[in-house]
């Protein structure tokens, strides 16, 4: 048997957006029936390359070969015909349609839906069994968990006879166990002869599931290696272009007085009790990490402490002084005045106004600060100067205060938020998902800033769904499940398995240790 033609071969692909060369002379070859990883920092050109392969963009130069045949892909219809399917990071599903309706959407056989749906239901059942993709065909999308919605996206592609699947940051929204399940599915797909391209910045995933991996940096494909022949540290170095600390370096905590004391905190939202009596305390100079699957009350905990929503019961004290939780006498600004900084979970919807320029965002929430105002009017010059100063010290690139927030990369957006909230050295810092969608270089920087704040004797509440981050940064770890804290652990005395069980609500891993 001669070696079969590679499933995908790219030759000399180049693409420029204005002055930015997003892809430079990229050549790549992926063998049939393998999983190929593409890693790189945000803005390295991964998404552009995949968009070219899927027909969203047209390459300025270069050729695409599918199964050895030159295949121009001018639009996504051509990509589908060539057997390419793409699962986007943000799902493209109609929330109030059922699974089967979503699967046939755009691929209906005729004007009447009934025959298409019947056919699709049968095929879905077969596909589900073949690949272990179990989903109820009649479930409404919005009732499904994120992991199941992603399965629907994969099923959609398989229904369209995709042989080559591109997954863009597929685990960004998944819990560790959901991610594991996804990987099992991908392995099954591979065994059945499908070719998979996995775009991610999580090196652990690359090591766990891929056969080969390509590294992109600044629009170029710098290396392609067999996964078995490399290591996370080596990949990180190739991505960033220098040695990177994958583990957080920190000295043991030196806890001082209690800064924050939360007692029996209850929050009801939308008729659902999201916090069911949460109690904990944080001392000066320590980081309390809250682990848990997203949606178990962590968001509400941050929002109630940050003054965004009222509480229905319980008490919170900062330095032994009560904080108003009714929402009538306090809001985000009064919290900030009390010395509570808040890096929110979602920088695009909460932490920043994407249409505002960077300098306007640097004053966001602090815009009543006298140093940003002169009399009736805001002092734009002072805010711009402050912004330029923060950009220099927090390494925000490009250091241009006049650039709208949406034109910065995710990592640099986050640095703007971090600079704003941490630079005033708040007594208590609330941090939610500090490194979500942030590249490795920026992660390292943000983590070191958090540790530095702790070492100044400040109290930090860290909420993250990334267990690595919780384990690496926290001095104490509490796990949240269904609106309650499942007990505390010391990072040195626990492991991912135990935390994973607590995250699933299993408490009898140990008999004592609860707060």
């Amino acid at each position, binding site marked *: 048997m001669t070696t079969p033609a590679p499933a995908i071969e790219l030759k000399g692909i180049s693409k*420029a*957006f*204005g*002055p930015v060369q997003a892809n430079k002379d990229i050549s790549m070859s992926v063998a049939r029936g393998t999983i190929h990883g593409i890693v790189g920092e945000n803005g390295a050109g991964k998404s552009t390359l995949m968009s070219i392969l899927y027909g969203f963009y047209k390459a*300025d*130069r270069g050729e695409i070969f599918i199964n050895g045949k030159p295949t121009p892909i001018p639009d996504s219809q051509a990509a589908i015909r060539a057997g390419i399917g793409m699962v986007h990071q943000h799902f493209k599903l109609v929330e109030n349609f059922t699974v089967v309706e979503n699967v046939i959407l755009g691929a209906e056989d005729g004007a009447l839906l009934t025959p298409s749906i019947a056919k699709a239901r049968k095929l879905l059942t077969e596909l589900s069994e073949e690949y272990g993709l179990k989903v109820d065909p009649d479930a409404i999308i919005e009732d499904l968990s994120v992991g199941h919605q992603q399965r629907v996206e994969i099923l959609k592609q398989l229904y369209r006879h995709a042989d080559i699947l591109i997954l863009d940051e597929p685990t960004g929204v998944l819990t560790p166990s959901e991610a594991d399940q996804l990987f099992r599915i991908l392995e099954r797909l591979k065994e059945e002869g499908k070719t998979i391209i996995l775009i991610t910045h999580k090196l652990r995933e690359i090591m766990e599931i891929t056969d080969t991996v390509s590294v992109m940096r600044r629009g170029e494909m710098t290396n392609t290696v067999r996964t078995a022949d490399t290591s996370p540290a080596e990949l990180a170095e190739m991505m960033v272009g220098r040695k990177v600390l994958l583990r957080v370096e920190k000295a043991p905590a030196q806890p001082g007085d209690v800064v924050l004391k939360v007692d029996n905190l209850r929050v009801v939202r939308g008729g659902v009790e999201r916090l069911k009596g949460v109690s904990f305390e944080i001392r000066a100079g320590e980081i309390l990490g809250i682990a848990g699957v997203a949606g178990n009350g962590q968001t509400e905990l941050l929002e109630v402490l*940050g*003054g*965004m929503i009222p509480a229905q019961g319980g008490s919170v004290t900062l330095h032994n002084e009560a904080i108003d939780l009714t929402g009538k006498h306090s*809001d*985000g*600004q*009064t*919290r*900030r005045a009390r010395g509570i900084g*808040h890096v*929110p979970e*979602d920088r695009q*919807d*909460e*932490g*920043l*106004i*994407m*249409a*505002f320029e960077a300098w*306007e965002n640097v*004053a*966001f*929430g602090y*815009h*009543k600060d006298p140093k940003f*105002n002169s009399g*009736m*009017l*805001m002092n*734009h010059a002072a805010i711009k100067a402050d912004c330029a100063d923060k950009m220099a010290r927090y390494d925000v690139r490009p250091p241009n205060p006049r650039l709208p927030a949406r*034109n910065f990369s995710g990592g640099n957006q986050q640095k703007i938020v971090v600079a704003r909230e941490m630079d005033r050295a708040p007594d208590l810092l609330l941090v939610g998902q500090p490194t979500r969608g942030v590249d490795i270089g920026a992660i390292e920087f943000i983590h070191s800033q958090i540790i530095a704040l702790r070492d100044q004797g400040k109290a930090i509440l860290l909420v993250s769904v990334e267990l690595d981050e919780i384990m690496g940064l926290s001095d104490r770890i509490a796990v949240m499940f269904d609106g309650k804290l499942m007990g505390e652990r010391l990072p040195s005395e626990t492991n991912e398995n135990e935390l994973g069980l607590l995250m699933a609500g299993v408490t009898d891993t140990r008999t004592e240790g609860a707060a």
Partner: protein
Amino acid sequence: MDKMPKWADIILIPLISVVLALVVSGLVVALIGESPWRAMQVMVQGAFGSAYGWGYTLYYATNFIFTGLAVAVAFHARLFNIGGEGQAAIGGLGVAIILLGVAWPHWTIALLAAILFSAAFGAAWAAVPAYLQAKRGSHIVITTIMFNYIASALLVYLLVNVFRVEGSMAPESARFAEATNLPTASDFAGFLGFGTSAPLNFAFFIALLACVGVWLLIWKTRLGYEIRAFGQSQTAAVYAGINPTKIIMITMLISGGLAGMMAINVVMGEAERLVLDFVEGAGFVGIAVALMGRSHPVGVVLAALLFGALYQGGAELQFEMPAISREMVVVIQALVILFTGALDNMVRMPMESLFLSLRRRREAGQSQTPAE
């Protein structure tokens, strides 16, 4: 990276929209057998050809500046205030009450009082829909439009039963005292040829001042910053400690106040008494003005000038070319609103791709690598 240079966004696209609207209007005129070319000449000549024409054009523009600013301010908070019509009508009520109720010694003091009352009444009329939006989530588009009808009915009732001069059959109030009459264009700009018949009056300067005020408010004050932040993202505003209820209320009060101030121009400056239906659709034109002016005071002034010209030119058109009826003129005005407001994207998208391809070509020309 923006898709288009800024000048294209704020000047070229509205200009193309207006031209398109005029072309279609020309076709309509041709369809009824009249010369579009002559119609165009009559309109331009009527609006800008004489001091008399300017007097009317700028008078209408004054109305549209007030209502346009009202819509623009609300737009910045992503609130769609289409109640300018009713807020202006109630503003007129405020003007009538204060001018009839007090014997004013001089127009300057009367003007200050009229500004205060027209704004306060207009704001009060916007307050109820604003409260319902802020506290109950009732959609402001629905409530403000309903309040237009209530305002109209209320004005009819008050004019017929309360304000009507005894013995008169006309539903209008008594004339305001001579001392409260605002200086007209012939008083302050007679040297430019403005006669006594032109309705342009001192309120024009109040409108321009209001533009400066709105510009300062939106781009220079903390409140404007909060309004814009709230308009961009409500969750982010809450995160920053900005109270949504407060922003909705204040923004709508300012918006209603600006709409109400339109009454200074018409009720105090021109009619010199409160008459029925004096708003004449200016509240709705304000929406088109704000859209076309990109919610910026300078844009609002320019768009208001265009619509002022359309109103005045349209009136001349009916007069000069009887075949073109009043309804026909309304069609032309509606076409301009349609093209500049509703069909903005129809012009925008081709222009964006045009500028994109122009830029590509320029860059391709710069890079030395040969294209395939």
